[in-house]
């Protein structure tokens, strides 16, 4: 959740800010929208890095299986790495749909809190993780914009 739950808000904010300018090819707004899936894929890559770091130095099958205690969710999260593939990144909506699965867990806890069947501390914990996710996804998007801009400058110089 810490890696993916904040992406939907970043995604919708980018689309809101860029508005109809996102449709005009070559514009900065259009490039920003196109970079969203790459930023999401970068978050997934960082998630993979965290899993590898937790496994280190014991790479036995037993230890790897323990890292995947919520196996379906973690494997689903790792699938976001596929957004590095050009065929998938051309459809930014897919990255939004993928991330909404993780946002659902936050929504579920808030709904359970409204119905008073979950404690206050769970929401506090969830919002801390959600804030970290917002910051991470903002940072990955900013990083991708930076890399794209730098590479554009270098290509133009040549």
């Amino acid at each position, binding site marked *: 959740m810490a890696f993916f739950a904040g992406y939907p808000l970043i995604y919708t904010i980018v689309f809101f800010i860029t508005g109809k300018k996102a449709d005009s090819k070559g514009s900065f707004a259009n490039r920003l929208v196109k970079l969203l899936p790459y930023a999401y894929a970068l978050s997934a890559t960082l998630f993979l890095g965290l899993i590898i770091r937790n496994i280190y130095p*014991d790479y036995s099958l037993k230890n790897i299986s323990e890292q995947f205690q919520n196996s379906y969710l973690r494997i689903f999260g790792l699938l976001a790495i596929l957004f590095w593939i050009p065929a998938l990144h051309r459809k930014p909506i897919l990255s939004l749909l993928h991330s909404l699965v993780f946002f659902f867990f936050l929504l579920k806890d808030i709904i359970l809190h409204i119905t008073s069947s979950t404690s206050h501390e*769970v929401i506090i914990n969830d919002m801390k993780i959600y804030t970290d996710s917002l910051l991470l996804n903002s940072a990955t998007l900013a990083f991708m914009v930076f890399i794209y801009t730098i590479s554009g400058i270098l290509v133009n110089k040549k």
Partner: protein
Amino acid sequence: MKLLSNKTLLVLLILVSGYGYIISCTHDNSFPPPAATTGTKYTPGTGVFLPGNLTAGNANEWKMDKAHSSCLWQTNYIGAAGLLTGRFNQFGMHEVLTSEMTLYPAPGQPLKDTSWAFYENDDSKTFFNGYVQINTSNTGEPGRDTGCNIGNLGTVKISNYPGQYNLQVGNLAKIKSTNIAFDPTTGDYIATFILTWQGKLTSPLAKTLTGRLKYIKRATIAGTAPYDVFGLQLSFQFNCRDFGVTSTSVGDKIEIECNMNFNNK
């Protein structure tokens, strides 16, 4: 994506996020445990107890005597019957940082028990940290201790890491004090602290709790090489459902009693 539907989603996300932040920014009232008596007014002594470097033979440094300490739990069996009790075989008084949440070779304490200080009459300087290894829970029934207890508490068996202590995040519950206040009506201390435990959740939950910290007065043990001892007893309770424990074999309320003995040998 069409602009209109994107705006709808944006509004929905902002509403959900905003509501979550509003809830998380409010605080529940926390109440200290009720006083045992309302008559006598106690005053704290002047004792100062610090671990230092745990140097053997240094009488100014207080060492946690793990062999004579205990960390106990109890709860109502199936929430309604008599008490189900147990203890954690492995515990310590160290602030386990994220970088320290790993495996350590047994035997011996994996980390130095130095993350505490106790000043009888200076609450602002008193603090404590503690941890237990969840899978060392001992109820006297090996079938439970290596079976349902492991799954119900979200950890792994000791046999998964033979000869090692498992202080990884999934097997670690830790407490860290945030405030200590002397209670003049009982002579004990009201301790506010954070319990951090993953349990059956996807990530550790940090929950603020209140407990009673009792100081067992310093005493001298006579002998050819006399030394001093003192004790600290922390009692508190928490709701295990907050940590994702769903087993109906245990009640919602888990009571914990940590009895730490120290000496200055």
